[in-house]
Each structure stands twice: as C-alpha cells, then as structure tokens.
C-alpha cells in the first residue's frame, strides 16, 4: 500500500488482484497464485532482467478518443497487448493491467529462453549437489524441451574451490548475477565478480584467490542452480534424504530461522528459509555452518557425579537424587540464601522460567542472574528501559528503511551479523546513513559504506552518549520529551564540549551526529555487549534512554532502539526474570504488591530479600558465602569477569551443579553434571533482539542419556518436593502466558513460524525512574595499552569451537595491534606478545591491523585459548602492558 493506501488492480490469467502500486508483475502473479518462473530476480535485490525466463504478455485496456476504455462486444474492455513479451520481474504493474502467462506466445518465448539457458548447461545433474532442488531442473522439466538442437561442444570452465565454503562449477552458471549482487549489496563484501563477457562470462573471485569474505554461503543459497555449492555439504545427501525442520539459530540475538537438514540422527546442513523468518534466505557463517557441535562425538551422554575424588558416570535418577539431597542439606545448614543460580541465556524461555522458579519458589533464594559476564551490578530492567520501557519495538526489517542509524560501541559483524546485513542493504538500496561509534574501524565504519565513524577513547561510551544526548537536546526537545522528565538526570552536568574532551571526538562531529539522528524521521539506535557489559552499564543504559528521548528515538508510542544480547536468548533471560531484582515480566522482586501474582501461583511467599547479581555472586562464592551454585548453559570459568576468582568459587563451593552439552572446564569442576539437549533437540520459545517470540522445533530425536534442561530442572524440583508436572515445554509456556506481563495471552500455537514482538500495553510500560546518578566521568587513562575486546564473526560462545569449520575460519587467536603501536613496543607481525595486567598475564601471537587505534590492543573474545579473564577483574577501561616475548619463528603453527 502506498502512503494514501491506494491499490491497483491487475488481472493475471483471468484472476484479478489488488496490489500496491509499483509491485512487479512477478510479485503480483504470486499474489494471484499464478506461477511465473524466475531465476535472476530476488526479493531483496533490485530488478535486473538478466535471465528472461519470466517473460509474459502484458497489455493495457484500449482507450478510445474519449479516454474511456473501449468495450468489446461482450462488455469487457478491449486489451491492447504489447507486441512483444515482457520480463515480469522488471515490469511494475499499472492499474487495469492485464497479464497472460499461458498463451502460446508466452509459452513459446519461455521455451526459447529455456533452450538458450540449456545451450551450454552440462547434463551433470546426477553429480550436481543442487539436483533435486534445482530451479533450472524443475523448470526444464516443466517448460523445457526434451531434446537439444545444440550440436557443438559446450563451453567449459575449470571448477574451483573458492575458499573453504564455496565450490564453483561455472559450467552450470546461468549468469543471473544473484550471487554477485547479493554479496555486494547485502553482505557488503564485493567478493565475487564476473570475468569475461558473453558466453564466456564466468563468476569467480577477484584474481581467482580464495574468497576473503564473511564466508556466509549466501551466494550459494541464492544461486538458483548448482554453479555455487557449499563445500561442507558436498555430496553428503540429496534433498529427499533429508527431514527438514525450521528452527531458530542459536548463535546470536537476531534469531534467524534456519532449516536444518537431518539424515538419520545427524544434522547435515543448515539453510535459510526463503520465505520465512526474520532473515528469509540470509544466514551468516555461524548459522549456516555452526551446527557441527550437535553431531559431535564429544557430547556428554551420561550425568557425572563427583563423590569424593574424580567424576564418574551415574544414572539420571542417581544424579537427581544426589543433587536434591545435597541442596536440601545445604539449605538446612546455611539457609536458602547460600544457593545461587547462574547462567541460562542460551535456554528457551520455558527453561529460563523454570530455572528461576526453581531458585525462588522451590529453594527460596533470590540470587539468580543470567548475565555472568557483567562486571557490575545492572538492574534487571535497565535494558528494557533503555529500549523504550516495553513500548512497541522496532523490527529488523525496519532497519532497512531507516534513514539514520547509530551503532553504539559494538561490532555488529560479530554481535549481530544479520542486523549488519540489513544495514548494508539499507545503505545500498535505500539511502540509509550510518553513524558508527566504535573504537576500531569495524566493517560498518569503512568508508565504502559512506557513514560517519566516531572513534571514541576506550571506555568513554558514557561520555559519548551523554554528549550526544546533550547535543540532541540543544536542537529542541523531540515530541514527548517533557522538560522535567526523570531521564534528564542521567546526563546531568554534561555538555557537548565536556563529552568531546572525554571521548576525543570533535564537538562538531558529535553535534552533527545528534542532528542527523534528531532530524531523521525513521531512525534507530543499536547497541549490544559493549554497553551492557560496560563497567558503568547501569548509568550508561540510562544515558542511552536519555539519548532515545532527546533524539526522538523513543516516543510515547514506540521506541526505535534495539539491544543485541550476548546470546541467542538473552532477551528471554531478562524477560523471564533471570536477574536478581526482577521477577518474570520485569515485576520488581522487592514490590510486595506486584509480586503477589507469583506468590499466589507458586504457592509461597517471595519475600526473599535482596538478590545478588552475577559479579556479587562471584565475589560471595569466592569468599565462601555461597555454598551451592547451579550453572546452566554457561562455561563460567570462561565467562566470569575474573577467572581466578571463579576457579576459587568453584573449588570452595560445597555443591556445583552444571547443565552442559560438553565437559567444559566449568563442568569438570562440578559435583553434578547433567548432559543437556542441544538447540536442535528440544522445543521451546526464544526471544530475539526485536523482542520477537519464536518457536524452536525439535529436529532430532533425543540422544540417549541427554535431556532438555526443563526436564532436568523439573526432576530436581520434584525430588525437592515441588509438585511440578509439566509434560513438555508447552505446558510451561501456558503458565508463562497466564502469569507474565507482556507474555499474557500468547498462544504457543501461533508462535510458528514468526511470532509477534511483545510489548506492554500502553499504560503498563515501565514507569520512568529517577537516575541514581549521572554518568560518571571516565577515570584518567593509566599506563599501558587499552585492552579492547568484542565478538568476531566466526566464533560465538563455547559451542562454536566444537566443530571444525568455524575454528578453522577464525584462525589462531591473535592480539591485534596498530602497526605504529607495534613498532613502538618493538613487536612484529606474528611475534609472541605477553599482555600483562595486575591480575595476570596471557600470551598471544601479534597481528598488525590498522583498524585498531594506537594505544590499544584488540583481542577477540570467544576464541578457544584466549582467556582474557585471567587478567583479573576489568577496570574501566582495562589496561595491559604488552611485551614481546618471542620471535615469529619460535611460534608453533
């Protein structure tokens, strides 16, 4: 529908449909349920008209001299057909247009195109991996001739491996240019190109080098034929061997739908979903190739119990009985407050709900926190407040249409690859302008995307946000920003100039960025881990809320801010109250009236006292105050801000229960280890960064000895005397839908394939809150280099290490230094460097990278073997001293 809602009527093969003006004939045909074949056209790419397979006859009503349609004898308007067939994928519909797809003229034209497409196409379907799901095969069957008039030899090219992911067989290529255009306009990588011209056109990488790109495999996905195929899936199966299940990717908060192909009980591939999900055909490299861990032979298959010395396998019942008995003893001796529950950001919401219910309603402890990486206490509702307090949220699709987007602090390539792709598409196709605030020149900050890069000093995010908010306020209050609004307190005492001094960004650049944001009618502010795990996260998030109001990104009725949580279901963890101060649905735990709904439903009082947050639990456990820890889906030794402290906590706790897929270092330190199901083995609901509820489905049978987390939690709760009787995740969700604000009234059945985005009713959004204190100024930089870290594309979390492809793509972990900085400290490319902080030191190979600012060192997180938390609890910003400890030669491969 266009702005004034008018629609145009088109008649396609006698069926009349109403579509928005500007719709292409092929899309209108889909609406009319008439099949018009396509190869080169793609919903996310502008029309090209390269392949001509979509030819149809197009006509308009004949107009008489009076500009009125001429009527034929039967009263129907006479149609003036265009003399030649037209490509439907490039022809926009007009009101009254008539289209014929099945006339002899159209059919003959299509057969002719088909014959030309097959002139050079090899007859190697039996060995081609696309066979069975190839559009050319299907259309040749439907429209093509069953003989060839081609006598000459077909032209041939060498096949090539373009890196570890893409296999190219150019003989099969029909030069539709989808791959080249997708890589350019959506991935922003320009990694593919067409060599030669005419019949010798060949798609390949530049200089025929292995592709230096995101390795997303989307070129393979969009290739309508078998010219590009995926090497990891090469010759593994045929589509008819696979049971295909659409579920949700576990690797980031974007929540892409993935179609898993399962043969036997093994996942053989993952693909996009074409017409479903937030992502449709898109998947990043992790979503597409990161499923390997599910099939891993190293998965835990039996519970482990440590009674005395070593861990030994036990039956599920033994493990449940033991865990329950020990928990009961510890509660009896030390009180319920000596038990803490950690982790859970990767679970489904049903499991998260049960996890906190076990803690609060069965054990009776308030110490629950999923955000094990935080270095400081952050209110459980801080992120929801910063993203508009539960007002209707923006969607990932809205990003494409935004005019101005501010990306705060994070490298979206690692944190939210799909969101990055949406921004790149918006930039290419719709004139989106990017403002990227990042210490490093990350991909989105590259000049080719035409945005502005705000390179602030390490750790000065709060100053930057406060200055941006001030600059936005200078432009006049946006609608809804009342002069006395409490959010103003967060930026009190700040001016643009003060922010400029603290961040090192010129005040003009800050003012210009704020002006762009303020002026845009469609805008977005995106942030992630760099904000949520900042040492000053609590006040920083309030400052972001202030920026939202000041720039008009938050209004009374909606909010255009999006937070990318560190894990696939981090949003669910917040929603389900895996925070010490909030019950599910952001009900304040300390508010006796508000929590009544849960007291009634769970049958106990929830006057549990103040809960400890994750960093406080860490400190308390290390000091011996917490006696029992239950950690789910989290390798705490790797995620806790201080590894030595976490090790001490694990060693001194009387009981450590861990639910895990693999024997992680944390699981090794546990007294009870429950083997848990992987994402593809259980059903449930996950919530993505848009706050969209999406159902995951079970693609694989449960492995022997492995149970989904909800069952483990229920078994222990029952052993502790709770009367839980959930038959499945659906039962739990029903309880959630009854009780939890924001989730009320949702029905499990409607969450497939693409559920709704939840929001509070307008009168129920979180009340604004007076900021505790304005964001504090940054402490003066100390000695040494600022340690920058962040997500990278190829690895995310412990599970991604368990396959073979992703670690190979990620290469060995390295410390990235600016060449000038490296020269200053005498380090060459590939030398071994030691990074030392007061808490400890780590050693890595150095790599020179001009995108890292001088005076800092970048170490990607989530790589196996990089244990940044060995450096001790992070200050703001963490600082290290780098020293060369070995030459390149001494470094093992």
């Amino acid at each position: 529908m266009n702005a004034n809602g008018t629609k145009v009527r088109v008649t396609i093969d006698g069926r009349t449909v109403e579509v928005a003006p500007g719709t292409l004939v092929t899309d209108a045909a889909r609406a009319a349920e008439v099949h018009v074949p396509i190869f080169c056209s793609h919903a996310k790419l502008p029309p090209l008209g390269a392949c001509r397979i979509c030819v149809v006859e197009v006509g308009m009503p004949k107009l008489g001299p009076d500009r009125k349609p001429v009527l034929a004898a039967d009263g129907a308007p006479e149609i003036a057909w265009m003399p030649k067939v037209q490509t439907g994928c490039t022809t926009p519909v007009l009101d009254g247009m008539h289209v014929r797809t099945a006339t002899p003229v159209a059919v003959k034209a299509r057969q002719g195109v088909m014959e030309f497409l097959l002139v050079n196409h090899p007859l190697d379907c039996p060995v081609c991996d696309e066979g069975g799901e190839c559009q050319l095969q299907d259309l040749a069957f439907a429209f093509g001739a069953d003989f060839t008039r081609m006598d000459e030899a077909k032209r041939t090219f060498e096949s090539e491996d373009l890196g570890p992911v893409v296999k190219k067989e150019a003989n099969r290529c029909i030069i539709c240019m989808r791959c080249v255009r997708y890589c350019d306009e959506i991935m922003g990588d320009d990694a593919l190109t067409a060599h030669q011209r005419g019949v010798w056109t060949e798609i390949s990488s530049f200089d025929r080098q292995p592709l230096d790109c995101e390795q997303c495999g989307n070129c393979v996905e969009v290739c309508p034929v078998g010219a590009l195929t995926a090497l990891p899936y090469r010759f593994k199966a045929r589509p008819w061997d696979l049971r295909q299940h659409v579920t949700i990717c576990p690797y980031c908060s974007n929540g892409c739908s993935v179609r898993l192909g399962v043969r036997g009980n093994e996942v053989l591939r993952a693909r996009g979903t074409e017409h479903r999900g937030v992502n449709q055909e898109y998947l990043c490299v992790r979503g597409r190739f990161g499923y390997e861990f599910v099939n891993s032979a190293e998965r835990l298959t039996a519970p482990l119990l440590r009674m005395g010395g070593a861990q030994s396998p036990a039956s599920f019942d033994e493990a449940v009985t033991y865990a329950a008995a020990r928990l009961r003893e510890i509660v009896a001796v030390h009180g319920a407050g000596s038990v803490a529950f950690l982790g859970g950001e990767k679970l489904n919401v049903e499991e998260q709900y049960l996890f906190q219910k076990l803690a609060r309603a069965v054990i009776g402890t308030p110490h629950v926190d999923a955000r094990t990486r935080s270095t400081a206490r952050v209110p459980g509702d801080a992120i929801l407040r910063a993203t508009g307090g539960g007002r209707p949220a923006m969607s990932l699709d809205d990003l494409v249409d935004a005019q101005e987007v501010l990306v705060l602090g994070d490298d979206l390539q690692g944190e939210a690859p799909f969101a990055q792709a949406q921004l790149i598409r918006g930039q290419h196709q719709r004139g989106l302008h990017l403002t990227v605030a990042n210490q490093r020149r990350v991909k989105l900050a590259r000049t080719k995307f035409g945005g502005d890069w705000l390179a602030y000093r390490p750790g000065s995010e709060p100053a930057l946000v406060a200055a941006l908010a001030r600059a936005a306020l200078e432009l006049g209050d946006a609608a809804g920003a009342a002069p006395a609004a409490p959010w103003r307190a967060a930026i009190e005492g700040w001016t643009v100039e003060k922010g400029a001094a603290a961040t090192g960004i010129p005040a003009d650049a800050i003012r210009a960025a704020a002006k762009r944001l303020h002026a845009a009618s469609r805008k977005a502010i995106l942030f992630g881990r760099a904000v949520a795990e900042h040492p000053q996260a609590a006040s920083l998030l309030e400052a972001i809320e202030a920026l939202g109001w000041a720039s008009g990104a938050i209004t009374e009725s909606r909010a255009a801010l999006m937070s990318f949580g560190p894990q696939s279901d981090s949003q669910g963890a917040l929603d389900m109250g895996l925070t010490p101060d909030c019950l599910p649905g952001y009900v304040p735990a300390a508010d006796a009236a508000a929590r009544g709904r849960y007291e009634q439903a769970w049958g106990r009082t929830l006057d549990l006292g103040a809960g400890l947050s994750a960093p406080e639990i860490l400190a308390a456990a290390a000091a011996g105050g917490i006696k029992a820890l239950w950690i789910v889906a989290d390798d705490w030794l790797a995620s806790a801000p201080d590894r030595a402290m976490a090790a001490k906590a694990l060693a001194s706790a009387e009981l450590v229960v861990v639910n895990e897929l693999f024997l992680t270092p944390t699981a090794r330190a546990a007294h009870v280890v429950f083997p848990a199901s992987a994402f593809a083995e259980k059903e449930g609901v996950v919530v993505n960064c848009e706050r969209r509820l999406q159902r995951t489905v079970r693609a694989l049978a449960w492995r022997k000895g492995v149970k989904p987390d909800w069952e483990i939690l229920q078994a222990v709760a029952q052993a502790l005397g709770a009367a839980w009787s959930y038959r499945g995740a659906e039962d739990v969700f029903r309880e959630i839908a009854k009780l939890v604000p924001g989730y009320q009234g949702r029905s499990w059945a409607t969450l497939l394939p693409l559920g709704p985005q939840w929001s509070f009713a307008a009168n129920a959004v979180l009340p604004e809150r007076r900021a505790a204190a304005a964001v504090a100024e940054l402490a003066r930089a100390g000695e040494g280099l600022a340690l920058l870290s962040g997500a990278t594309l190829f690895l995310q979390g412990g599970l991604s290490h368990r396959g073979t492809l992703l670690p190979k793509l990620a290469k060995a972990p390295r410390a990235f230094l600016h060449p000038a900085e490296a020269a200053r400290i005498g380090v060459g490319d590939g030398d071994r460097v030691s990074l030392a902080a007061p808490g400890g030191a780590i050693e890595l190979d150095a790599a020179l990278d001009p995108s890292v600012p001088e005076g800092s060192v970048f170490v990607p997180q989530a790589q196996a073997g990089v244990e940044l938390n060995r450096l001790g609890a992070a200050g703001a910003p963490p600082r290290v001293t780098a020293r060369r400890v070995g030459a390149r030669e001494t470094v093992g491969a």
Partner: protein
Amino acid sequence: MFKEMVQGLGVTFENLFKKPFTVQYPEEQLTMFPRFRGLHILTRHEDGLERCVGCELCAVACPADAIFVEAAENEPDAPQSHGERYAKRYEINMLRCIFCGMCEEACPEDAIYLEKKFELADYDRDAFIYTKDELLVGPEQSGYLPAR
C-alpha cells in the same frame, strides 16, 4: 457316467506322456527370460571404473524405500567412478525390495540392473542387506551390461 470316466482318464493319460513342466530344482536350473528381474548388480565401465555416481535417483525412485546411498567425492588420482562423485555406501534391503525394476529405469548411468539371480534365501536378516561389495560386479565383467 462311464463316458465321463473315460474322458477324465483320457486327460490323465495324455499328460502322462507329455514332457513335464517341472524341473528337478536345484539339480536342474531354468534359464531366465531376458527381462527377468532378480538380484541387482552394479555395473562397471569398460575401463573398470564404477558406473554408479551415487546420484540417489534409484533411491528416490524405489517404491519400497529399499535403497540407501551415501555419496562421496572421488580422490582425483584414484577415482572410483567417472566424474567427481561416487557411491561410498550402496545398500539394498532385499527384504523390502519388490523387484519392480524402478531403480534400473531411474538410473541415468546404466549402473544398476536387476539380474537373473533369484536364490536369495538366508538364515540371517542382516544378510539381506546387500552391500556395495556384494552388488558390484567383478573387474572381469567391466563393460558388461545385461541385454534388455
């Protein structure tokens, strides 16, 4: 009544002196018709390489879901078949097979044929899963294709 008896005995005597239809199996064996469909074989090219490329068309054509194929990529210096792909595993479950010949019809490579062997009884269920070793003809039969 007497007439009928003579008629009946007439038939008996007539058959007594006819050549018998039955054969003394297993001492005596019948030659099968050319298009008889018995146990499958996997054939070889003249150069000894396997014809089967592991395309799985036989598996998808099979109405009894009796065929399992797992393909793999040929080693360039030691290929098993022409082209890049070959069947790493090729199994037919003869307990399921209904000898319809659809696999033979589906095969684009003339790789699978239903041959004349029909003595398939065995003591063990597992023995009815015929593996590639059992189905593939020996190198001496390279280039052999059954007459059709």
